[in-house]
């Protein structure tokens, strides 16, 4: 089996994969990073969103070997020690999660958005999560949470500590 070497959440990993393995399954089944969810399995719902070299992708249709040598960030990679990431905390504070299945993907899309655009408008937030479906919340609290996270990251930045 081919060997896949990549960085996952900052750590070098080497894992044997089948040539047609998809990244979401490698993350979940071989690396036990089960925070990444598989919803539709067709790249339509966004639940499996992870970042590859900082770009959001739907990992359920992303061939694992394409990640060779790349930097993969999953929901597990956001927490620093015991402290949740600002976006995660904002989702809790805004009750932006109901069943929770879309939440990891939603938060990864929010991370990609805020990394590229730290001060998004409401329309830009909506566009940023337009590749993620949520069947529970009606999206309102999710947009609020991302807005709150952007505000908190900006406040932190002003205090001179690290943003993300």
């Amino acid at each position, binding site marked *: 089996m081919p060997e896949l070497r990549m960085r996952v959440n900052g750590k070098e990993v080497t894992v044997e994969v089948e*040539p*047609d393995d*998809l990244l979401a399954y490698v993350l979940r089944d071989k690396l036990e990073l089960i925070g990444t969810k598989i919803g539709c399995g*067709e*790249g*339509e*719902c*966004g639940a499996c*969103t992870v970042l590859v070299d900082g*770009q*959001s*992708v*739907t990992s359920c*249709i*992303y*061939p694992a*070997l*394409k990640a060779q040598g790349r930097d993969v960030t999953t929901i597990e990679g956001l927490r620093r020690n015991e402290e949740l990431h600002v976006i995660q905390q904002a989702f809790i504070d805004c009750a932006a999660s109901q069943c929770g299945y879309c939440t990891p993907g939603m938060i990864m*899309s929010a991370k*990609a958005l805020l990394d590229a655009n730290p001060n998004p408008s409401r329309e830009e937030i909506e*566009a*940023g999560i*337009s*590749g*993620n*479906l949520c069947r529970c919340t009606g999206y309102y609290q999710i947009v609020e949470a991302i807005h709150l996270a952007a505000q908190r990251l900006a406040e932190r930045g002003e205090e001179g500590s690290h943003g993300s």
Partner: protein
Amino acid sequence: MLAERRGRARIIAGGTDLVLQSQQGKIQATTLVDITRIPGLDFIEEREGYIYLGAQVTHAQIAASPLIRAKGDVLAMACGSVGGPQIRNMGTLVGNVVNALPAADGAVALFALDAETEVASLSARRWLPIAEVYQNVGVCVVDPSAEMITALRFPALQPRHKGAFQRLAPRRSLALPILNTAVVVGVQEGRFTEARIAIGPVAPTPFRAKEAEDVLIGQCVGGAVIKRAAELAAAAAQPRDSVLRGSKEYRKALVEVLVRRALAEAAGLWPRTSGGK
């Protein structure tokens, strides 16, 4: 590698369509050759009046490109409406052309831009007009087990040109279009001097409404002639009844609405809506 495994290997770029086709057992190939790390295929540049795009360029890169926004805005708008952000980060425009679906937003814009494709085989490279690349629904003239499209190009739009893209879909994102249209018009001294109207999916390949284009040329910019062109476009379009996309009567009526809006927007008679994303 394609030559070594003749017929059993094919090219993969973003894989957003190919992975699904492969899972459904629709792909004969046993080897996939990933072209996304070959150096020198990621360019978006202007040379001698043409805009060139390499085979690795994604929908997201096109939607965000200042050069495309300035000199091929209709393509930036179209690529920005494909799928969602993740799909646009993965999927390439060239891959979209090779898949040859008549609904593809980017492809419809390429038809309105009179684009050409550079096809490389083992022995030669040739430029083909975009319309010659599309043969039927999902059938591209390029055989991805023996050839590849290495680049696209289209004449850079000039200040006299204006483009617009209109799309109707069940949702604003992650939904295939019921209909889409891309138009490019040239206006000089208040008259239409050029007009290109592309519509999808109303035929097996993206469709150019030539009669509608012709009726505009030489006419003063105004609502009446735009309405006439939109009617001709609707008359020429042959949408099918579709469970997914609605009845042919409904979709024919919509062709007129979308073409009218797109032309009015390009001519400055309608507020710009198509650059929203």
